[in-house]
């Protein structure tokens, strides 16, 4: 018992050490880059948070969701509704918590229904969710702003944050960088939470349900409860991601939460390899930084801007198809297998 506890403590400690290292890297990187890159990095952060939630759901629990874009919309619209006035009633952190909680509740309702579905049925139902949610914003145009969406008024950084930022980095904190820090700190907290959960009893249950329903049930695991809890956790991450997105884009509009966003998240998860948080983050990085490179290449190859912009999704789609056909454990998973073949050993199948 005490040994188990101390092992759990060691895992927690190692995650916390990684988190502290992550924070150091984040501060170093955000100090070094300009505002434009900071905005891009914020995009990577929210894609990473949502993809992290999705990878837990799909990779660890075996449920697929094409509706995470819709769940991000819930988080983003909650954020926007709470940040309408110049003097918001909640501090920014409170808004983050509220957006996460609201999405969590919505996710629980969807999760209860989704827990009874599997494979293509679940994919179809969540696909319908992704297509349906933007319509709600249009229908309730008076409160939710219709096609134009809702503007998000991001409050200025408090003085102590400005002072602290100047003390640590020696620079004045610009609004874009403030939001970038917010996004990345949210990501660190979310990832530590997800990593701890997946190494805990809860995470073992999720994997047991994924691998063999009958065996899991015989071992006394409630299938429904395990599935719903995975969906709820994953939805909460999507809600937090929606918050970061809304604060960064300063707008919550239906066009931002199209089917494309949901498919993009799935792409990030598949590219990174199902079930690892590092993979999800790597996928998010690819989705953020690759499009510019590819679009530029397309423009210099003679395509007009709009067509060149479609080259990036084309490449993702092709890689996604190739990954499923050639390397079903994803890019990171395949690299890891190759690493093992070379004679190195690390703990297997755990998200890191």
């Amino acid at each position: 018992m005490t040994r188990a506890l101390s092992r759990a403590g060691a895992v927690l400690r190692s995650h916390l050490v990684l988190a502290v290292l992550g924070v150091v890297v984040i501060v170093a990187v955000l100090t070094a880059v300009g505002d434009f890159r900071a905005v891009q990095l914020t995009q990577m952060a929210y894609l990473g948070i949502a993809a992290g939630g999705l990878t837990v759901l799909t990779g660890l629990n075996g449920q697929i969701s094409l509706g995470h874009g819709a769940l991000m919309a819930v988080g983003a619209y909650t954020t926007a509704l709470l940040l309408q006035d110049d003097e918001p009633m909640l501090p920014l952190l409170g808004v983050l918590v509220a957006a996460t909680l609201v999405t969590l509740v919505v996710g629980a309702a969807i999760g209860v229904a989704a827990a009874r579905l599997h494979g293509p049925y679940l994919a179809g139902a969540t696909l319908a969710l992704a297509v349906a949610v933007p319509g709600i914003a249009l229908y309730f145009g008076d409160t939710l702003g219709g096609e134009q969406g809702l503007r998000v008024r991001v409050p200025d950084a408090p003085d102590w944050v400005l002072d602290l930022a100047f003390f640590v980095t020696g620079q004045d904190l610009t609004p874009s960088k403030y939001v970038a820090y917010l996004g990345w700190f949210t990501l660190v907290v979310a990832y530590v939470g997800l990593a701890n959960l997946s190494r805990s009893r809860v995470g073992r249950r999720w994997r047991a349900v994924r691998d063999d329903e009958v065996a899991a049930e015989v071992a006394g695991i409630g299938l429904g409860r395990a599935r719903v809890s995975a969906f709820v956790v994953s939805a909460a991450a999507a809600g937090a991601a929606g918050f970061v997105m809304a604060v960064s884009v300063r707008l919550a509009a239906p066009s931002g939460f199209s089917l494309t966003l949901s498919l993009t998240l799935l792409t990030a998860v598949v590219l990174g390899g199902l079930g690892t948080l590092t993979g999800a983050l790597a996928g998010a990085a690819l989705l953020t930084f690759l499009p510019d490179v590819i679009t530029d290449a397309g423009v210099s190859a003679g395509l007009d801007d709009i067509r060149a912009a479609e080259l990036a999704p084309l490449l993702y789609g092709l890689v996604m198809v190739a990954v499923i056909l050639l390397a079903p454990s994803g890019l990171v998973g395949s690299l890891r297998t190759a690493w093992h073949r070379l004679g190195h050993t690390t703990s297997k199948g755990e998200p890191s």
Partner: protein
Amino acid sequence: MQQFVNTVLGGLTLGMVYAAFALALVLIWRSTRIVNFAQAPMAMVTTFIALQIIEAGHSYWLGFAAALLAGLVLGAVVERVLIRPVEGKAEINAVILTLGLFIVIHALAAVIFGNRYRSFPAAFGIRGIEVGDTTIALTGFGIFTIVAVLVVMGLLVLLFRFTDVGLRMRAAAFNQEVARLLGVRVGRMLTLGWALASLVGSLAGLLIAGGSLVHPGYMDSVVVYGFVAAVLGGLDSPGGAVVGGLLLGLSLSLVSGYVGSQLVALAALAILMVVLLLRPQGLFAQGRERRV
């Protein structure tokens, strides 16, 4: 009253298209246990082929036939090259694969044909027919839609019921092992099934496009409605898919006419969830309970 009649007529016309699309999904599901989410962009791309031909000055019907033929070929190629390796593997692989294909075809069409809205011609009038002195919402093209879907369904019934190939295809879908032992080339039958399904999907795409605007995403919501219609019918039964399509077209038309067109997709989601949770075997299936 007139609005109600028009809503119902519009719903039935749209329902026929959903029925065709659902039928395409069902044909594939029966033989390979895969829901082909890429059906929508596959139909979209064949519609663009028709549009290119028509805009080049050829007749509407040449474009129409070319699109159907392209659908046939595309379905066969997709099955043979991409789907064959994941048949019988974990179902999540096939789902992700068809979604990857969804993204690929989408992006490819946008690169080749451009990402703007283009108008697609209709073969027949798209103004309401006049009965007495009121104009009803049934258009010439609407009648053509209904007839075209009925003809294709009739041909499929003839194929499956009365021909040798149809019998082999049914055997391959029913039990691959046994069919193989009886000398059926199961692989070929699956390819043929995907080809036919893709043809039916292309037909649905052409019928939705007729007299309206097309762009690379115009079929995206139709795959949802087709899926809901197929599930309404039990996902396994071609007849059920047709009835499901009509029911869904009617319900969505009523929602659109009386509640708000923005909530159509939400209504489809609600119908889907109710069916899946209360009657997962579909409205018309008899026999064993099925897990969804």
